[in-house]
């Protein structure tokens, strides 16, 4: 319990730092929401008037304090500078899409990754193994914006899948596959190496000496022990996946948080960017928290050490 509270305290600190960084970063970027709004034909007076109206003419520190005050006293992220709609509502309508996409990609990456990784380990040194290693290297190296386009051009027409949009399961296959690819490749490699490593452990030799069937040794002993580093890895990879979702959402027109944020950055709509960044930070912290707790649960030594 104490462990949980301590983690919570440090998380809030992280969130404060994140918000401050985003605030300063957005202020340093040239252009502001007023310019984004009135575009290329506005006169200087029109711009100044709008800036006043939007509260953009206040100094940075003051704007930050206002934002924080609102967040803490009312639990409110403010309104979009461009549309005037409440930021929280905008975020809430998009978060489920991003979470769904990320989770599906994680599920795909782990299930397929473990299967393929095991296949490679079992056939160590064979052409199958060599091919899997080569493909997984490619999977890690190829950026999603490219693999996404390749899938779109070659895979989607053959499977008769829609390219863009969101909502149905069918719409989700292409983006989640694209997003899962790099993580899947990492999982493949990790599974393969930890199984190979496990097979050399004394407990496996004992099990073999006891005459346990090979399958049982592999799945019950080796793979289960190999899962511990995998869970650690997933914690880190989920962060990656959330970031990757920004790109994949843009490519496939998936209506998630990433799309909203990218547009908001172009519009210099800082309440949205800030809200989205904080949401993602919270998600990330939450994932790490779950990973740590489940790690402690899987391996009781961890909990003891950290207490």
């Amino acid at each position, binding site marked *: 319990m104490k462990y949980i509270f301590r983690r919570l305290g440090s998380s809030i600190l992280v969130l404060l730092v994140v918000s401050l960084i985003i605030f300063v970063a957005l202020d340093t970027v*040239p252009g502001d929401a007023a310019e984004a*709004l009135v575009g290329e034909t506005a006169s*200087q007076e029109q711009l100044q008037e*709008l800036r006043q109206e939007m509260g953009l003419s206040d100094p940075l520190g003051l704007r930050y304090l206002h934002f924080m005050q609102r967040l803490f006293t009312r639990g409110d992220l403010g309104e979009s500078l*461009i549309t005037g709609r409440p930021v929280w509502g905008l975020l809430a309508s998009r978060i489920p899409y991003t979470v769904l996409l990320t989770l599906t990609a994680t599920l795909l990456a782990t299930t397929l990754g473990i299967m393929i990784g095991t296949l490679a380990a079992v056939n160590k040194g064979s052409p199958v193994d060599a091919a899997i290693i080569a493909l997984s290297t490619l999977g890690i190296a190829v950026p999603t914006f490219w693999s996404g386009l390749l899938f779109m051009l070659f895979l989607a027409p053959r499977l*008769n899948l829609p390219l863009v949009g969101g909502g*149905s399961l069918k719409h989700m296959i292409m983006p989640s596959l694209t997003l899962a690819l790099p993580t899947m490749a990492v999982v493949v490699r990790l599974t393969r190496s930890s199984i190979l490593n496990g097979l050399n452990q004394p407990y496996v030799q004992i099990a073999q000496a006891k005459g346990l069937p090979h399958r049982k040794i592999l799945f019950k002993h080796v793979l289960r022990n190999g899962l511990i580093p995998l869970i650690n890895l997933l914690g880190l990879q989920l962060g990656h996946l959330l970031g990757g979702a920004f790109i994949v959402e843009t*490519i496939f027109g998936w*209506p998630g948080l990433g*799309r909203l944020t990218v547009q908001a950055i172009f519009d210099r709509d800082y309440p949205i960017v800030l809200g989205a960044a904080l949401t993602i930070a919270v998600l990330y912290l939450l994932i790490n928290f779950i990973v740590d707790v489940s790690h402690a649960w899987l391996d009781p030594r961890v909990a003891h050490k950290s207490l």
Partner: protein
Amino acid sequence: MKIARNGILLTLIAVLVVSCGIAGRQDGNSRQGKGGTLVRAMTSEPSQIDPQGTPSSGLSLVLPYLFDTLVVRDLDNSVQPLLARDWEISEDGTAVTFYLKEGVTFHDGTPLDAEAVRFTFERFKETGKRSPIYGGVSQIASIEVIDDLTVRFTFQQPNPNFWGTITMPYAGIISPTSVAEVEESGEGYILGSGPFILESWQSGQSITMKRNPDYDWGPPIVENQGAPYLDAFVYKVIPDAATQLAALKSGEVDVMFINQPSHRTELRDHASIQLEEALMNGLIYLGFNCQEPPFDEILVRQALSHAVNKDEIVKLAVGGMGKVAFAPLPPTLPGFDPSLKEYELGYDPLKAQSLLEQAGFKQNDAGKWERDGQVLEGVLLTSTRAPNGEISAVIQSHLDAIGVEIEIQQLESRAVMQATGEGKFDLLLWRYGWTGPDALHIFLSSGRIGSTNRVAYSNPEVDALLEQADHEPDDDIRLGLYLEAQKIILQDAPWQPLYNPISILALRDRVEGAKLGNMGRLLLNDAYIAVNGEE
């Protein structure tokens, strides 16, 4: 544990397989004859649907289908009736009276009358500050309702550019009832009287409109002035241009605009996709910072202008998606005059060099131009928008050929706008798009330095000519004034006009009757989906 995990996996696979099977095809509704659903790609969705609200590229795409304007412009920029069947301009040019068509109704069923027109523009003056046509609308001194179908606009002084303002989609007439409802409940949409009715808007995904069955007040620029043939018209939000292209090829999207030369090449030989071209009311130009030495000298600006080979730019960098320009106004706008060709600072590298000598520069051993120990060089600022990078590279090679080295700086467009506002550049590759000759006033008059006059050009004579022209009721005199101003501008060379953009519309074969209107607007009144098309 193991069994459970396998179970989940199996279920997942089963669900995936089944859902792929079920959702094979669901289109192909279409009744007999003309109809169908047309899907068009949209890069970014509007933030709201109020013609007078926050402008965006998405908004201007949606508006023409949902809202009608009083009048519209045809391809030749002539003004044609839409909601107004006729109009009258007073002798002195300070008043315009519109006679509205009878029987026009908004999507909520309320009548579109003179009062609604008055309401629309009164509201605009109050809430439309963010709109690009706010400047134009705020020139309206008063709006009088003469009778149910007659409304008169008056101005302080003659305002010929008013037509540019009221033909923009932002000037769509809105239903006062719908505005009251939206304001009261905070929900719903502001409604118009357009050929399509907003059916649903799924944020981040699509905007769906259905045909307005009561529509019978279409403009003469289309054949079908009645209700559109299409059952529905859908905008799909697809931010990525490459994805749009893939979606068009797969048939998921019927219509999209192409803005990359490579995409045009890719589609040119596609069996079931047609390309249509339209010259836009716009200009891409090479600008000089008129307040930054040595570009504040006319001779230097003229010299560098002569070094630029526009034909090569259009051929190499623009992939034919542009027409070489010589005047500050595009040929599609009133005020353009072919005689301006004589005043063009055409491609002539030798002349460029002799002008530099005239300005006191000497070529040093390295072949660079020097004066008082200062080497002539500069930074060419432009945005990351395609094909600005390619154009800049071609310009760089042209200037290099006469011995002037430039460094290309590509920034995101807001950053460029900020930098030009602060005068932090030497050369600028930029563009404008506008609906009338008052473009000259907006982009080149000294009153707009620091904002839209990005090159900080100032010539009192030009200012006076433009001011006079913007309020001259007599067309001939007015066009003469614009011509005079453009001659001086070409001589002063704040801009070297490069080309007028050509917009390319790509549509699938099964789309019939869609046509391009003014400013690249896609007119769908005559459009339908061929029933036994592809698939």
